[in-house]
């Protein structure tokens, strides 16, 4: 029997019917994950508790965004986790049944069941031993799903609470598997420094391009800075030296670092496009306010270069979250200090052009868009000690429609008024994923 005969044999067993149902999603998730290509039904907001506000606890807030629901645009569920942990980022497991969310201060990891009833997530498990498990990694940040496993970037370490850190891997049951320390100048772990880059060992985000077996990590800052008052840190020259200046290229399959690129000014989020021939990724630098392209050149080598300014870098707008459209043509870029979102035309990734901007609020951090790009959601909080003070400390989820020319507000939820806390990362849910 040859391959074609085997194909015929298999085909005879095919029943009539459509292929496995559409599985869909916002545009910046792990590519291993089912996607919501239709209309998202719920937005989960991982929210920092504020002392004296409501129960004062971190919580996973569920907002109904079903188009015809009588409760659309309102909070329909909230699961508090029993304290404040510096709630920050989170991500779904590769089967999208569980949402893992981290606390940057306490290092707790909360695993929520979002599939049993997507409108009513419940706390399934808490990992209390992240630092001990990992051999001293602090600050579980990005949760990047692999089949059957979760790869977590750290931000810091328990020795000096600086920026040296690692990737930490767990299985989907929440059992620790391995730690992969970031390369440093003293221990490159087999990686090569490109163009004089100095490996700083820092971490932040992680994304992968499976068909290239490429994984990229970026670099932010350690516990001693992200838990410091923002104004105080800006006045501390030593603290301002403790930011990452690198992006690391890894072998996805082996988790071994290959190259260290010089990307000065704290490169944060990393986004790969979805196109089958799109061999690049974007990142933005928080301190130098630039858009960077990490790309494969004509010789098949990966490189990094700055491709655009974000606002006026001299004003330090502090770029934060970015979101790439499913067609790879545009990129939303938020900047915290001026509260703006900017849309870049990235159809030529080597020459991005800003085509639109809008002030979302006094401060803005995260942005998530639907798969069709027609709905864009924003939240407000960066870090508890970095958020603005007084009236500028607006805490919200804002939903907009995007018609290609203008963001039009659909609804807003005031997290301060509802005594919820500081709204951070958003992820979409839908019961259709589990049908």
């Amino acid at each position, binding site marked *: 029997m040859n391959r*074609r005969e085997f194909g015929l044999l298999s085909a*005879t067993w095919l029943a*009539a019917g459509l292929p*496995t149902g559409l599985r869909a999603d916002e545009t910046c998730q792990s590519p291993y994950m089912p996607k919501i290509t239709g209309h998202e039904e719920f937005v989960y907001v991982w929210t920092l508790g504020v002392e004296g506000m409501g129960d004062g606890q971190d919580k996973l807030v569920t907002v109904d965004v079903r188009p015809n629901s009588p409760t659309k645009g309102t909070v329909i569920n909230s699961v508090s986790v029993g304290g404040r942990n510096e709630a920050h980022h989170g991500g779904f497991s590769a*089967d999208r049944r569980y949402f893992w969310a981290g606390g940057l201060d306490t290092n707790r990891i909360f695993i929520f069941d979002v599939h049993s009833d997507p409108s009513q997530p419940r706390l399934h498990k808490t990992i209390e031993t992240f630092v001990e498990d990992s051999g001293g990694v602090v600050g579980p940040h990005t949760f990047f799903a692999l089949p*059957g496993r979760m790869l977590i970037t750290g931000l810091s370490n328990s020795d000096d609470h600086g920026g040296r850190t690692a990737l930490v891997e767990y299985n989907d049951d929440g059992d620790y598997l391995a730690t992969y320390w970031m390369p440093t100048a003293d221990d490159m772990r087999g990686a090569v420094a490109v163009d004089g880059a100095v490996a700083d060992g820092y971490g932040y985000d992680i994304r992968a391009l499976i*068909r290239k077996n490429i994984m990229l990590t970026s670099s932010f800052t350690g516990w001693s800075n992200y838990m410091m008052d923002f104004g105080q840190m800006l006045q501390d020259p030593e603290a301002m030296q403790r930011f990452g200046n690198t992006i690391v290229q890894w*072998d996805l399959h082996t988790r071994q670092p290959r190259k260290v690129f010089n990307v000065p000014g704290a490169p944060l989020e990393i986004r790969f496009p979805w196109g089958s021939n799109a061999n690049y990724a974007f990142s933005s630098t928080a301190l130098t306010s630039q858009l960077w392209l990490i790309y494969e050149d004509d010789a098949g080598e990966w490189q990094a270069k700055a491709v655009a300014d974000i606002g006026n870098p001299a004003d330090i707008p502090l770029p934060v979250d970015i979101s790439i459209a499913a067609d790879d043509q545009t990129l939303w870029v938020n900047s915290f200090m001026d509260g703006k979102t900017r849309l870049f035309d990235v159809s030529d990734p080597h020459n991005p052009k800003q085509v639109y901007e809008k002030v979302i609020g006094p401060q803005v951090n995260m942005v998530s868009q639907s798969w069709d790009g027609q709905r864009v959601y924003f939240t407000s909080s960066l870090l508890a000690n970095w958020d603005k003070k007084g009236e500028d400390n607006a805490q919200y989820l804002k939903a907009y429609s995007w018609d290609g020319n203008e963001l039009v507000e659909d609804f807003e939820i005031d997290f301060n008024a509802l005594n919820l806390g500081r709204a951070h990362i958003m992820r979409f849910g839908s019961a259709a994923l589990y049908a």
Partner: protein
Amino acid sequence: MKRAALVLTIIATMAAIPFAVSREAEAPITASGLSKHFEVGDDFQYEPPEPGTYDLVAVKSAPTGQVLDTSGAQRDLGTLLNGKISLVSFVYLTCGDINGCPLAMSTLFDIYETSLMIPGLGEDVQLVTISFDPERDTVDAINSFMLPFASDAEKDQKFDWHVLTTEGQKKLAPILEGFGQVVDRGSPDGQINHLLRMYLVDRDGAIRNIYGLGQIDPRLLMGDVETLLLSEQSS
């Protein structure tokens, strides 16, 4: 999509999947060369890592459970997995998703055929495919499906390929749960929504890698098998 069109699509897809066995490789090869005998596919634009240069951490223990083979005999899955390196996959025979079971089965078929080039490796490596649709994939059904393999004159020189089913959902559920294979059966058209997964299980029953769509690359799969074999030699 009508059945006929769908069938043609699947046939065309399977015939076109580019990681066919390299027929240029005529020279005798060793176990450590197995992964190099597959051509590069368009979906896999990388040079796979060199076997033995990386670690495969034990993810968790593979579950045990009662399964049925093509003769209808009850088999203990744990016993079946014990002693050999296994590539375990979950499929259902009427799957209509070209990126699902047909992709998995065609890749396994390539590996099965290629195993002929390494006489004796079948003592160390086997393929295990379990249906997650026991109501339709009965013993008779899987037996019929595997008939051409039973009459394969060279089958004794290739990997064993165990295609298995179960008595029903009660027997199946703990196996799926133990591996972490997600299956949703709510589709009114009888199709079963599932995430494509393959599992590399070592001789001691530990899951050493889990593969999803985009990783069903025979070079990668067999490179990991080689890595396990090399780690056994060095330990």
